[in-house]
Structures are given as structure tokens and as C-alpha cells.
């Protein structure tokens, strides 16, 4: 408590009263509870996926610390069945989708970042007004069908190719770049495309990284579009598989991996699928969160 008291009050301005001990401990308790409530499920899901049947029964469900960790559950889901295929599908959609989305968003944001471009105002209004009202589920579904995208991976990418929010973030960043720099490049004879590639892009690595990660996470998590547009189970992505095995409780075929052996418990397999879906997000999150805690996006959100 002493240590945290010092830390909690390290930069107190002179006019501020000394914090009371009960105030500090209440704050500490509240924050500690929130942090635990967020982290506990993650820890417990990972731990359960590594547990044996005996341990799960002994704990009556979720395990916090497996004493006898085993990778059997992962062996089952990576044996080449539905989960492996869904993982490949998800990775494919997320990578192609992210590249396509980032390219389209950067191009559009740069194209509209300069005042006075002929028709720029009009295009901008078209994009911004789309945020105010959506067409609805039925018309969107019918459109995807009419375009022949039903049951293709393109149906998971094209309908959400550009997010108006990401577009605004990039456009306001591009507009904030020092105009002297761009003008001097212009004087030196650089065309608009050259300016984008040689000056704007190298200066915009951070916001483009944030936007890319936003898109990647979005594609990875996309459940609604996959549910609407993917009929063929061969094309199913991870969220659909997750729903089938974990939420609807369909038992997973064990395959050849455990013939004659004791198969891992269903709960461990289910949690292993959850972990597989979680890992990519947990991997990119450290790169993402730096930007938020430093407030890189707050300017864009405010404006």
C-alpha cells in the first residue's frame, strides 16, 4: 500500500490537497477489481485449454492454473479438421481484406485531403452522409446476392471495404501535414502521386499502422457478414466455427489423433478454439494500445 500511495500521488500539484488514505484505497480497489475482471477470463480460458479431464472436473469448470498442462486439445484442433480450415480462411480474408481496405482508404483520404480539388467536396459529402443512415440488412443482402458475391470471400471484404471512421482519421492526418513540405515538393516538379508515395506515406506510418490494425481486427472478428453471406461450410471463417463448436456445443470429431487413447475433454477443446481465435488479437494489441494510451487518435475523434 505504501508503494502505491507514493506512486498514486507522485505528481500532485501544489494546490491539490493531500489524498486521504481511504480515498486512495477505494480507488486502488476499484481499479484492481476492473483490471482483474478484464484479465481473469483470458487467463482462465488459456488455462482450461491446457487442462486434463481430471483437472476440469476437479475445478468444476474453468481452471485457473493447470498443474499438469497438456497440448492434447490443440493437437485435436490442428489435426486438419474444420478448425484448421477455418483458421486458414480467416487468415486469408483478414490479410487480403486489410491490404485492400488500407489501399482504398489511403488513396481516398489523400485524394480528398487537399482543399479545392474539383469534385472533392462532393465525394467527401457522399462518404460522410453514409455514416448517418444505413440501408438495412435486407437491401444489403439482396445487393450482395445480385452482385454474385454470395458465398464468396469477396462478400466478407467488399461491403465493408472503407470505414468512414478510418477514412476521416487518415484524411485529417494528411491535412495536418505541413503544407510547405508538400508545396516545395510540388515546386521541385513532383506530381501528386509522387508526393503521396515519397512524402505523405513515409510521414504517416503511425496512423496508417493504426488503421491497418483496426481493419485487420475487424476482419478477423467479423461474424455478421460471415453468417449472412457464407453458406458453404468449406468457406467458414473462425467465428462461425467458434459458434458451432463452443456456443452450439457440437462435439468435435477427434480424428485419428487419439484412436485408443484418452481424448482431451470437450471443454478443453472448446477453449483451445477460443484461444486460437484470441491469439492474433493478443499479438497485435500491444502495437495498437501504444497509440491509444498516447492519445494519437484523440485529435481525430474530437474533430
Amino acid at each position, binding site marked *: 500500500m505504501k508503494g502505491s500511495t507514493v*506512486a*498514486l500521488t*507522485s*505528481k500532485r500539484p501544489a*494546490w*491539490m*490537497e493531500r489524498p486521504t488514505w481511504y480515498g486512495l484505497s477505494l*480507488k486502488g480497489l476499484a481499479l484492481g477489481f*476492473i*483490471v482483474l*475482471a*478484464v*484479465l481473469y477470463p483470458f487467463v*482462465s480460458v488459456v488455462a482450461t485449454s491446457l487442462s486434463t479431464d481430471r483437472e476440469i472436473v476437479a475445478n468444476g*469448470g*474453468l481452471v485457473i492454473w493447470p498443474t499438469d498442462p497438456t497440448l492434447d486439445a490443440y493437437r485435436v484442433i490442428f489435426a486438419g479438421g474444420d478448425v484448421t480450415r477455418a483458421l486458414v480462411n480467416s487468415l486469408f480474408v483478414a490479410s487480403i481484406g486489410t491490404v485492400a481496405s488500407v489501399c482504398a482508404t489511403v*488513396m*481516398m483520404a489523400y*485524394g480528398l485531403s*487537399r*482543399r479545392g*480539388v474539383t*469534385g*472533392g467536396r462532393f*465525394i467527401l459529402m457522399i462518404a460522410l452522409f*453514409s455514416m448517418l*443512415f444505413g*440501408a*438495412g*440488412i*435486407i*437491401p444489403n*443482402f439482396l*445487393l450482395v446476392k445480385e452482385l454474385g458475391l454470395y458465398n464468396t470471400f469477396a462478400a466478407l471484404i467488399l*461491403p465493408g471495404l*472503407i470505414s468512414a471512421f478510418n477514412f476521416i482519421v487518415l484524411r485529417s492526418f494528411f491535412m495536418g501535414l505541413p*503544407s510547405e513540405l*508538400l*508545396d516545395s515538393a510540388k515546386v521541385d516538379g513532383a*506530381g*501528386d*502521386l509522387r508526393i*503521396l508515395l515519397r512524402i505523405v506515406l513515409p510521414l504517416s506510418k503511425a496512423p496508417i499502422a493504426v488503421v491497418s490494425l483496426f481493419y485487420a*481486427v475487424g476482419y478477423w*472478428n467479423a*461474424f455478421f457478414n460471415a453468417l449472412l453471406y457464407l453458406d458453404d461450410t468449406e468457406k467458414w471463417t473462425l*467465428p462461425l466455427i*467458434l*459458434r458451432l463448436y*463452443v*456456443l452450439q456445443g457440437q462435439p468435435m470429431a477427434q480424428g485419428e489423433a487419439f484412436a485408443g487413447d484418452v481424448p482431451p475433454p470437450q471443454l478443453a477443446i472448446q477453449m483451445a478454439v*477460443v484461444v486460437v*481465435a*484470441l491469439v492474433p488479437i493478443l499479438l497485435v494489441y500491444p502495437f495498437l*494500445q501504444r497509440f*491509444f*494510451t498516447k*492519445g494519437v*487518435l*484523440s485529435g481525430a475523434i474530437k474533430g
Partner: protein
Amino acid sequence: MSFGGVRMSVETETPAVTAKEKPKPRPRRKLTLVQRLKRDKVMILLAAPGLLYFLVFHYLPMLGNIVAFQDYQPYLGFLDSDWIGLENFTDAFADPRFWSAVTNTLVIALVQLVFFFPAPIALALLLNSVLSSKIRRFVQSVVYLPHFIGWVIIVSIFQQLLGAAGLLPNVLDAIGLPRYDMMTDPDAFPWLVTLQLVWKDMGWGTIIFLAALLSIDPQLYEAAAVDGASRWRRLWHVTLPGITPIIILLLILNLGNILSVGFEQLILQRDNVGAAAGEVLDTYVYFNGIQNGEWGPSAAIGIVKAIFGTALILGANKLAHFFGHEGIYRGADK
């Protein structure tokens, strides 16, 4: 702010203009449309795919709403399906399941408005009062995380925590209380989905409030403290007025969304509690329209929903103006 590239380069050919001198009114050379298109062609071409995307995937589907006035049959298509006027609307309104979905939607939205909406504000105030930036950063990076977790995973996790064989029933069992499965209790459904929303987005929601809190002039606090205002009075008289505009802005946006409570979250759990408690407007449209092929009535509901949403935003904005706040437009034109 403008990077009027060409114009600038024309002007810089007259080197007599120094930085100190007052800029003379520009000799605006009027360009013809063709000249301007030629000047901007790269920029326009770069923006063109985006324009195409928005037109095809955001504006074209609006035309698809005509099926609300048709007896739409997929094998006949838009052009050959029969026009039936407002029959779809009257059909939809006559369906008791529709009204049940409306009620459920409003109840869930109300519970979320009362119990979810203030949560990020409270957490932001709490974080803002923590002086150590290290602790603040740490808590921030933990609480932002769930926002990036998809609903399928979140519902799976909650199933393990609160579901029949999950953590909560086991704990209740251990302390001698009857087992309770919150995931399948229809009465608890609005609370369950709100709880999940709090877990997912309470932390993320603080970002916008923390930004607003940071923009409050610290001198205001100092002046108030010097004048003898206690910490609670400073909270009331300095902090809250400082974030009121953003609170009102978000309330307005929330009101506009009151008829669309999280689709993914609800469709995943509707069957756990049954349609009587778990059906909301969006899931009703999905099951009725796409699963059962009732295209017309479902599209009609979509239109009604969109009109109501827009009307609610405009109405709430009017209300905010009436009470002397700037409402949504400030955010829009900056």
C-alpha cells in the same frame, strides 16, 4: 491550410514578396473546368475507387428498399415482382412478434442507457484522478483490450463464466445457494447483454471522455482550489461542465441507435433465452427476412427503423439546442 499547389508555384515566381509583407489579394486566374480536371486528375483518380465503393455499397442498396413495397420473389427479381403498395407495412405491424421485438429492443436499450452509458464516464473520472501516469497507462491498456475481442469469443467466455456448468453456478453451489444459470434466464437477458457490453466497451468508451478531460484548462482547477473549492466541488463545477458537451453529443448519437442494439451479440444469444425475450428488431428482420424469406415486410421494418433513428437524432439534437448546448453539429463541422 490549403495546399493550393499550382497556384502557389505560380505566385512564387514573383520573388519580391517577403514573409513580412502583407499578402496581396491573389490575382485569381479562373481556370476552366477542363483545366481544373487536368490539374486534379491524379487526386480524383485516387479518390475514385472510394467513391465507387460508397455509391455501390451504401447508396445502391437504398434502392433495394423498394422491395418493401413489393411482393418480392427472388426468382422474379426487383423488376418483375408485384407491387403491393403498403401491404408489407400493414402486415409487419399486424405481427405480434414484431411488437414483442420492439418492446425487447426498447427495454434493452433503456437498461443500457442507464447502466452502460455512465460507466465509461465514471471510469474516465477515476482514471483522470490517478496522478501516476504509469498506473493510468497500465489500467488503460488493460481495459481497452476487450473492445478488440469479437462477440463470438465474448459470448463463449461468458458462457463458461455464467453458463450452466460455469463459474458462477459452481461458486453459488459451493456457498450453499441454488445454482443459477444467467445465460438462459429470459428475465435476466437485458441485464446479461448490458453486463457483456460493460465488459467489452466500458474501457474503450473512456477514450473520448479522457480526451475531453485533458482539454480542461488546469488553471480552472487551481483557481477553484485557491478559492476554497473541495475536490467534490471541483468535480461538480469544473470537471463535469467541461465534459458536458461531449456527454450530450454521445447521448444524441446513442438515441439515434436506440433501435439497433448490438446485432452480433444478440443473434448469438437469442436462442438461449427464446425469441420471446431475446428477439430484437435486427434479429427479427434477419430471421423473418433472410431465414424465412419474408423479404417485403422485413425491408419495410428496416425502413421504419431508419426513419425513426434519423428522427430521434434530429429530435434529440433540437432538444440539446433548446437547452443551450451545441449538440451534434459542432462535432460535424470542425
